[in-house]
C-alpha cells in the first residue's frame, strides 16, 4: 500500500544545482536522518514479510512490492548493529541501489528537503563514534541533520547469521 508522499514523484528534479542537494528525512529510534533522494522512489506500508533464515540480522525479510521482490532492511537494527533490536515498524522507504531493490524500514518518514551548501557544517568529531558513517551534516532550523551513507546502510555483514 502506497502512501502519497512528496518522495513519490519522479527521481531527482532536473533543477538540482550542484552546490545544493536534496534529501529525504526519516526518523529511526527518535533521531532524524537524511537519505540522498536520488535512490528513493517510493514510501509504502509493508504487509507480509517473509523472513530469510540465516540472513544478516539487519534483513527483516522479503516483501512483494507490486510484483517485485524487495529486501526489507531495518534501519534501526542497522544503526544499532543489534540483531535483537525489535523493529515493529511497517513503514518502508523503497530504494533502488546497486541494481537491487531494498525497502528501508524506518519509524517515520519526513519531507524532501533542499539543503543549501551554506548549511553544511563541519562534521562534529564525535558523530562517527557509534560506527555509523555519516556522509555530511547540515544545520537546519532547529535540527542538525546527518546524511546517511547509503552504501554503508545497504552493505551489511554477510558473516553473521
Amino acid at each position, binding site marked *: 500500500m502506497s502512501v502519497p508522499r512528496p518522495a513519490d514523484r519522479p527521481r531527482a528534479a532536473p533543477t538540482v544545482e550542484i552546490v545544493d542537494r536534496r534529501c529525504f528525512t526519516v526518523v529511526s529510534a527518535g533521531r532524524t536522518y537524511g537519505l540522498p533522494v536520488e535512490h528513493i522512489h517510493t514510501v509504502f506500508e509493508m504487509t*507480509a514479510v*517473509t*523472513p*530469510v*533464515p*540465516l*540472513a*544478516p540480522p539487519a*534483513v527483516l*525479510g*522479503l*516483501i*512483494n512490492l507490486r*510484483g517485485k*521482490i524487495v*529486501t526489507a532492511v531495518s534501519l534501526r537494527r542497522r544503526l544499532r548493529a543489534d540483531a535483537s533490536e525489535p523493529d515493529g515498524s511497517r513503514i518502508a522507504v523503497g530504494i533502488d541501489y*546497486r*541494481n*537491487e*531493490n*531494498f525497502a528501508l524500514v524506518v519509524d517515520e518518514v519526513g519531507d524532501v528537503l533542499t539543503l543549501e551548501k551554506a548549511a553544511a557544517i563541519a562534521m562534529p568529531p564525535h558523530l562517527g563514534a557509534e560506527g555509523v558513517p555519516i556522509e555530511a551534516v547540515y544545520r537546519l532550523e532547529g535540527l542538525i541533520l546527518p546524511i546517511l551513507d547509503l552504501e554503508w546502510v*545497504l*552493505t*551489511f555483514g*554477510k558473516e553473521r547469521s
Partner: protein
Amino acid sequence: MDELLNDFLAETSEHLEAAATQLVMFETDPSNAAIVSSIFRLVHTIKGTCGFLGLTRLEALTHAAEAVIGRLRDGRAATPEMVSLILAAVDRIKLILTSIEADAAEPPGDDAALIGELEAQLDAVEFGEAAEAARLEPMLASAPIPFAAPATPSTGDVAKRSETIRVDVSSLERIMVLVSELVLTRNQLLEIHRRKEDEAVKAPMQRLSSLTSDLQDSVMRARMQPLSRLFSRLPRLIRELAVETRKKLTLVIDGGETELDRQLIEVVRDPLTHILRNAADHGIELPAERLAAGKPEAGTVRISASHEAGYIAVSIADDGRGLDIERIKDKALARGLVAAADVDDLQPEQVYRFIFLPEFSTAAVVTSISGRGVGLDVVRENIETIGGSINVTSTLGKGTSFNLKIPLTLAIAPSLIVEAGQQRFALPQQSVVEAIGLGEGSSHRVEHVQGAMVLRLREAVVPLVDLHDTFGLPRDAARARLAVVMRFGALSFAVLVDSVADVQEIVVKPLGASLAHLSMFSGHTILGDGSVVLILDPVGLARSHGLTQSLELGVQHIPERFIPPREQTRLVLFRAGGGALKVVPLSLISRIESATGAIGVSDGMLVMQHRGFLMPLLTLNGGGTVEDAADHPVLVLGIGGESVGLVVDEILDIVEDFLDIEIASGSPGVIGSARIARDVVEVIDTSHFVKLARPDALARGIVSRFSVLLVDDRLFFRDMLAPLLAAAGYRVTTAQSGRDALFLLSQGAVFHAIVTDTDMPDMDGYSLTREIKRDPRNANLPVIALAANTAPIIGEAAAASGMCGVVGKFDRAALIAMLRDNLDVQTLGPHGLEERIIREFAA
C-alpha cells in the same frame, strides 16, 4: 543450405540493417569518423567471412570497397564521388547477398566496373597506388555484366526464411518477463476464485487460465532453438581434431531438431565442445591401435539429443578405448580421495565420478587439445548450475558415453511448496523423488545417529536434514511430519518438513546481491497468493550439511580408518552417552575393566588406577564426574603401552559383522554410521579419545606410521625411492609435480615430512617449499631436497627456501637418516609403539 552460409547471411543482413541509418548519415555527413569506421567494420567483416566461405565475387567487391573506406577512415576528405561509390558498393553487396540467399551460390557476373571505379578513386586519392588494382586486373578484362535481380525464390529454404523475422533477444526476454508476471497474476486470481467461487466468473476464469498457459507455452517455444544450431559447428571441430590428433574421426549427429531454450543452448556449448575434444583426444585410439583391436580404423563419435519428460537428454558416445577404471582408482588413491580400504568397494559409477573432480586427469600425455587445466570439473559445474546433471558410462575397450540431462528452461520450474515452522519454501520438483509421511504408523523410521538424523528408507539409510534446525525455525510438535527425499546424482538425502502445501509452477528469480551468499537458497519467487517464498537449493542444502563432499569425493577427510574392509570384524556393541548404540572394533580394546573404587580427579581429568598406573578416563561426551564413572564398564584402549579408558553405560554384546560405514561423520569422536544386525550404530573413533587424553601419543602418529610425501617428476625416481621409504617404515604418497603436491595438501592430506626433487618442470622444489611454508601450519613440516649432487650452492638455496636439508638422489642411507633425524624431533617416545601398530596392520 549450408548451415554456415545460413548463419553468415542472417548475421550479415542483421549488420546491414543496423548500418542502414548510418549509411544515410554517411551520405549527409561523410566526414563523421565514428560512422565511417562503423561502415568500415561492416564491410571488413563481410570480406573476412566470405573469403572463408569461398564467395569470391563478394570478396573482390568488399575488398575494393574496404580499401576506399579505409582511406576515409585514415582521415582523407571524402568527395561526393567517393560517397556515392561506397553507397553503390553497399547496394551491390546487398543484391549479391539476396541472390545467395535464393540460390545458395553467388550470382553469375562480376563487378569489375564498380571495382574499377573504386580503384580509380583510390588512385585519385593516392597517386599511383595501384597495388590492389594490379591484383584485380584480370577481372577488368571481362565485360561488365550488370547484375540481374534474383528470380522469385525457388527453394523451400527461402520460403521458410521469408516467414521468419529476427527479433531482438531483449524484446523476447521482455515478453518472457511479462508473461511470467501474467502467470503470477493468474495464479493470484485463481487463488481468490478458489476461496470465493462465483459462477459468473467461473467460465471466463477458466478461459483466462488456459489462455495464459498457452501464451506461456508459446513464448517459451519462441525462445527455443534447435540444437542443430549448436551441432552445426561440430563437424568442423571434428575435422580439426582429426588433423591435430592424427586420428580418423567420424561424427554422427542425431536429434539436431530437438529444441532447447536459447539461454541453455549457450550454457551447453562449452561443455559439449569439451567432451567432444576429450573423446577425440583420449577416447578414440590411434588408427593402428584400432585396427589391432579389431575395430574399424575410423573412430565414431555419436552425439544424440532427445526430448525426455521435462528435460533434454544429450549423449556424446565414442567407440574408443573406454575409461580405465583401475587407473582412475589408482589416481584417486594417490590423491588421497579415497581410502585404500574403500577403493575396491566402489561401484564403477562412483569411480567414474572422480573424473569430474578438479585437476583429475588420467591422461598420460597433456596435449594441446585437452588437459590444459580446464577439465571435466568445469563441465560438470556448468551443467549443474543450470540444474542439469552429467554422468558417464563406459566399457573398457568399447567406448565411453557422457550423458547430459538438461532442463528445458531455466525460467519456470515446477516446485513443491513445503511448510516448516510456519514458513513456506519452494523445493524444485526436478530433484524430488518422493515424500514420505513419518507420522504414527509409518514404516519408515527416523533415527538419531551421532547428533544427526538419518531416515531408514526401505533398504537404504539416507541422511535427513531438518529444516527447523537448519534455519532455526520454531517446531510444532503437533504437525504431521514429512520427509521429502531428493536425489542428486549419486546422492540421496531427505529434507524434514511439516507438510507439503502445494505444487506450483514458479518463476525463479535470483536473490539480490546482498543475499546471494546464502547458498541454501537458489532464488525467490512470488506465489499465487502474492506472498514471497524462498527457493531451496538442494545442492547448497546438501553441501552445507557436508553431504555432497563425502559422496562425491569418496572419502573426504583423511583421518585414518583402521577397520579392515569386507571381512567380518569383531565389534564391541555398547551403549553410552545416549543416542544410537555404539561400536568399537574389539581389536582396539586391550581389556574391559570395571570402574570400581580407585577413581579420582587429576589435572581436571578423570583417572583410575589400572595395573599400577594412572589411566585417564573419558566419557563419550567428554568430561564427567567420579559418580558418572563409578561402577561403569570401562573399555581400555591400549595404545603402545599407554592406556586410555572409555567409560560406557553398558556393554551389550560382542558381535561379528561386516562393518560398512554408510554415512561418514563430521563430528569428532565418531567415524560414521553403520548397520549392525538390525540396528544403526555409531562407530567410535578411538583416535579422537586418545588425542584427548594423551595428546603426545597422537603426535607420534598413533594410528599410522609417519607419512611421507615424495615429489619427483620422474617416474624412475618415484619408483626407486618410494619402496625404499616404505621399507624403512614410512607410509609413502607420491606426487609427480609441485602442483599435485599442493593439491594433496590443500585437500587436507597430512604428511609428516616431504621429500622433493629440486629440479622439476613447472614448479621446482624450492618454489614448492616456499609455497608450502606460506601456510603457517607447515612451519615445522620438514622438507628434504633431493638433488643430483649436494653442492654448497644447492644447500644454500634449500635453506633459503625453508628446506631442512639436501640429500643426493642416490644416497639412500642419507635420505633415511635425514628423515629419521627430522621426524625424531616430533617423536617423544620410543618406536615400540609404531612397531606395534605395524604389527597390528600386518595382522
